[in-house]
């Protein structure tokens, strides 16, 4: 199973499923991170504790723990 945290810098993926609890899921959805959305991994913070992704024209920062919950597939 591939999650967003495993993706290396520059990789383009499509969201398959979000395994987060209700609040976090709503939060992600409000940023447009939902099933079928296409993302690009832009940058990793030191130690890969935080990652930056791009969705549409928006850039979002996520903690590693949150990124792990997002199942993705490569496009």
């Amino acid at each position, binding site marked *: 199973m591939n999650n967003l945290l495993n993706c290396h810098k520059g990789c383009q993926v499509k969201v398959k499923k979000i395994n987060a609890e209700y609040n976090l899921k709503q939060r992600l*959805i409000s940023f*447009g991170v939902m099933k079928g959305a296409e993302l690009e991994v832009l*940058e990793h913070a*030191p130690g890969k*504790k935080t990652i930056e992704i791009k969705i549409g024209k928006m850039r979002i920062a996520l903690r590693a723990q949150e990124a792990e919950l997002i199942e993705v597939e490569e496009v």
Partner: protein
Amino acid sequence: MKEHIDPKACPIIANHIKVALVGQPNVGKSMLINSVSNAHLHVGNFSGVTVDKTEVLFDYKDYHFTVVDLPGTYAFTDYTIEERVTHDYLCAEDYDIIINVVDSTNLEKNLQLTSELLTMSKKMVIALNMSDEAEKEGIEIDATYMSELLGISCVKVSAAAKTGIEELIDTVVETYTAPKKEPKLIFSEAVEEEIEIIVSYLKKHKYKAVNSYRNIAINLLKNNKKTYEKLHGDPIWTELQPILIEASKHIELHHDTDDIKEAFAEEYAAFNRGIVTEVVRHSNDKKEEKTLTEKIDNILIHPLFGIPIFLFFMWSLFQLTFTIGNIPMEWIDGFFTWLGDVIAPTISNDDVRSLVVDGIIGGVGAVVLFTPNIIILFIGIALLETTGYMSRVAFLLDGFFHKFGLHGQSFIPLVTGFGCSIPAYMSARILKNDRDRLLTLFIIGFMSCGARLPVYVLFAGAFFGEAMAGNVLFTIYISGAILGLILAKVLKMTAFKGVDEPFVMEMPKYRLPALKLIWHTVLTQTIMYLKKAGTFIAGAAMLVWFLSNYPHNETLERLYATKIEKAVDAKEKLHFENELAQKELESSYLGRIGKLTEPIFAPLGFDWKMNVALQTGLAAKEVVVSTLGVLYSIGGDVDETSKSLADNIRQNIPFASAVAFIVVVMTYLPCLAATTVFAKEAGSWRYAVYLFIFTSIVAYVLAFFAYRIALVFS
């Protein structure tokens, strides 16, 4: 009072339009409100804890406008304080029309909120902001076609270039006077079918409602609580409920999810994609070039250079705050001394003179003294925030701070704490989550502020000699910071226990800061500081003045008056004056408290003089040194460089007690001024009491161990 604009107090006339300004963060709402209302606006802040909704009043043609600027929100949820404020306002308050501000350069994302607002059944106008920027980027939006598709008027504006503003207000007036139109929000066939079933059911039973059946159906499917509550009491509910359950099942099945909200989010996204494809044209080549923001980010959040660059920025801000800020500080200090000197001779009564000069002028002066630092720091923070750099900082540092239960953005208030706790508490506002902010507020005090430096310098010099003093100082600062981080972890595991708040944050586009906006924010914040903290602090300063001056011991005064008169030279005179000051302080309320609490502090090796010094230090840390000076008979006007005070202290205070004393100064409550600011930022005086208890326990326990350990070594 301008500060609290009561909507009911506004002149109630027929042509009064109340507008709710809603939009996602970073779409230029505040700038728009500035452009709309020009120079003559009455801005009032009625604040929640830290999130303010701003009300602006202005007249246009025959209409009185009240615009409520609501905090930015990504979706119609109540996750952050901002979102809660906006959500509650839109649902519960009374207003006529919504202006939804969207960023033209990123329409699809912005429409996510818009489509949710469409189900609110309120009149609405969409302001396509930053249209000039969009044009530059080759994005063309057909506003007329968009208005047609949505059934909502869309107006192109640019708050920065001040274009389209009048057209926007005209459209608001037009929409306000025209009858309400049903917005055209179209869902997928599966959802539309279910809506149709519910609508026909409502029609069949001739259900009476203000909103359209379609609107009710959508809200029922979306699990809207209010709509549910309304229908729950109606007889038709028994039959409606199974229909709804069935409908929800169908929709969830269609979207392959078990969460109806997720299904609707997908529906909205699809609808928005449709709108964007219809109305947006890109005149540029499809080939995507790296945007400026991405180029800057390549440097600023570089895995290796990102943190050093940030540290450099912080260092510069600090240099500015505490070097440039100190220049007017001297003037202010000079001004208040001069004011005291001028006023003193005009008051004949000794007590009143002392109250006015030492109590009021001294107390207020101490507050005003910090203003330059605070202004510079606020400008710095406003710059960090408006340019979009703040999010990068959180991105870079969150990994480290998260280990201690803190948030990446906690760094800024914590570092600021090394300068002064007051601006540090204020800058904790950048933390949007309640728990993150409170936790940060609680440990800011462990970052030793500038006012504690004199105490450290005095004791380090007295007990360690000049060669070692520097290292001792450094150790004090570092151990304070480490202690703060450890205590953050402890608090996180106990008092602030709970699931970690998720960290999902937008990294906005870099923007040049708008000077007018920064000026405005800094000005309001500074005025608020002077007004609110000023009244509290002045009052507190007067209380301390009273405690240390009363009751007067007249026999003592008379006795020393003759002694001073008979003194042979100036030196002896000074000696008697000091002795009088010491004895008077000893018999004052403050001195009595010091003696009364002696048994409590005996395990730490403190005598009553040290007690008193620490207790006056609650008012301000600078006072610790001057109190020690008085008590050890050097005269009130001493500073940390006075050689004789250091000698006196070395002779009178045992080494172990001195160590315990430093530990207490490091860890107990910063000062009264800071504590009032803390209470305001935390949202309740209750927290100030907690802070007092928390820091006192930490200080006492640590000082006790420090004392015992130092006893072994000395």
